[in-house]
């Protein structure tokens, strides 16, 4: 692992993403609009909202993530620049770390905007601590990004691979998705303290396993 190289790749990604300086605005607008959409699903002040609120909130991130993350590798693949990276003496893990880190930056950026917005817009009353809820979301996002980045590298070459591989991508994410929802509901509806939620530990555990697996297996993904 070479932090300097990782930093340089992340900078490059940020730079080419931010070329239209508007991207941050885009992200803001986007999370704003998709949050607003949910208003129409239920009467905004009905108790049903308290019920489904955490789920909807988390869904916005999954959806945003799906949109954004898959691009990180696929774009480099399609424009052929991934080979440029692979030609340079950067270890394949570092490429994975850089992409994961970049994705994480994006997701946390969106979270920083969308989470307060959600609370204000829906006048949502979090039963537990707002910080706890934020941390749970962030954990979910980390898990999502770690697995998602790795898997998006996997599907990159999907054409020549077996169909089965693609079908693994989303289901692999399923545990995190569900664990996060459960934890989020415990914090936001039942007001449970973060540290006493078993699911949170499971998420951390899951991230750890996935991260280790990903760094071991990544080199098999990029080789052809």
């Amino acid at each position, binding site marked *: 692992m070479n932090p300097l190289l990782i930093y340089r790749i992340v900078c490059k990604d940020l730079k080419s993403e931010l070329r*239209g*300086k*508007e991207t941050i*605005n*885009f992200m803001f*607008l986007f999370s*704003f*609009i998709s949050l*607003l959409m949910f*208003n129409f699903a239920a009467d*905004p*002040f009905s108790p049903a909202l308290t019920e489904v609120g955490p789920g909807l909130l988390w869904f916005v991130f999954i959806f945003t993530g799906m949109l954004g993350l898959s691009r990180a590798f696929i774009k480099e693949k399609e424009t052929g620049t991934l080979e440029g990276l692979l030609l340079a003496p950067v270890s394949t893990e570092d490429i994975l770390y850089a992409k994961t880190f970049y994705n994480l930056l994006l997701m946390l950026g969106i979270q920083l905007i969308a989470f307060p917005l959600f609370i*204000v*817009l829906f*006048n949502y009353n979090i039963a537990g601590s707002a910080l706890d809820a934020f941390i749970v979301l962030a954990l979910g996002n980390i898990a999502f990004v770690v697995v998602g980045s790795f898997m998006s590298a996997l599907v990159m070459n999907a054409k020549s691979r077996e169909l089965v591989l693609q079908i693994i991508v989303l289901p692999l994410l399923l545990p995190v998705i569900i664990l996060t929802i459960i934890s989020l509901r415990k914090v936001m509806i039942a007001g449970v303290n973060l540290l006493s939620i078993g699911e949170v530990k499971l998420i951390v555990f899951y991230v750890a396993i996935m991260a280790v697996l990903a760094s071991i297996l990544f080199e098999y993904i990029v080789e052809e």
Partner: protein
Amino acid sequence: MKFERKHAQVFLGTLWIVVLAAMYKVLFGLGPLKEELLRYPGDPMRNGYKIFFFSMEAAAVTYIAFTVVLLGSAFYLKTKDMKWDRIASSSARLGLVFTTILLINGAIFSNLAWGAYWNWDPRQTSSLFLWFTLAAYLTLRGAVDGVETRARLSAVLGIFGFVGVPLTHISTTIWLSNHPALYDTAQSTGFSLDRSGLILFMTLMTSFLALYIYLLWLTVKIDSLEEGSQKVFSGEL
């Protein structure tokens, strides 16, 4: 050249705030509720009604701004004359400002009348989507390189974007709403102006419109100056 534009924008912004503040001052100088000015049965809002004059005017100008975007876009596609693109895009930027005013006024109104700044009233929500439509239009402009491509693509979106206007207009009828209607037959939500109210309304309307037109003229001018200067620069290269 960039500096000049920034200065002009700061200047215009300040001007607008000053004008707005002056108008509020004038209106609130009217003193407490005059029954004859505005009839609102069971008036829960006391002086809150005054803000109607602003929200309604802002709404009207917003609609007008949308119409100008629509027309500018259509004429651009027809003639490919950049003038129309400048008119459409300037109107979109101004429309964003007026929609913001509408939303802020609306929120104040909503708090007075319904007890929450954001009430998810269809009028309120659809007005917000008017804002989003303009924001989307400007977003697209920001995301496309190339002056002509940008003009062309955003013109197409500008035409589509107009659907928001009729939607906002009918939103109160197709979706459960607390928003009152002017000259409504249903007594309970009826809301009407008498003669002096109407005069005040028309005066404000005229000044809002004048402001919009003046600002539109200014922004179009600034844009065309800026474009001209860019041409000079690249010519030198």
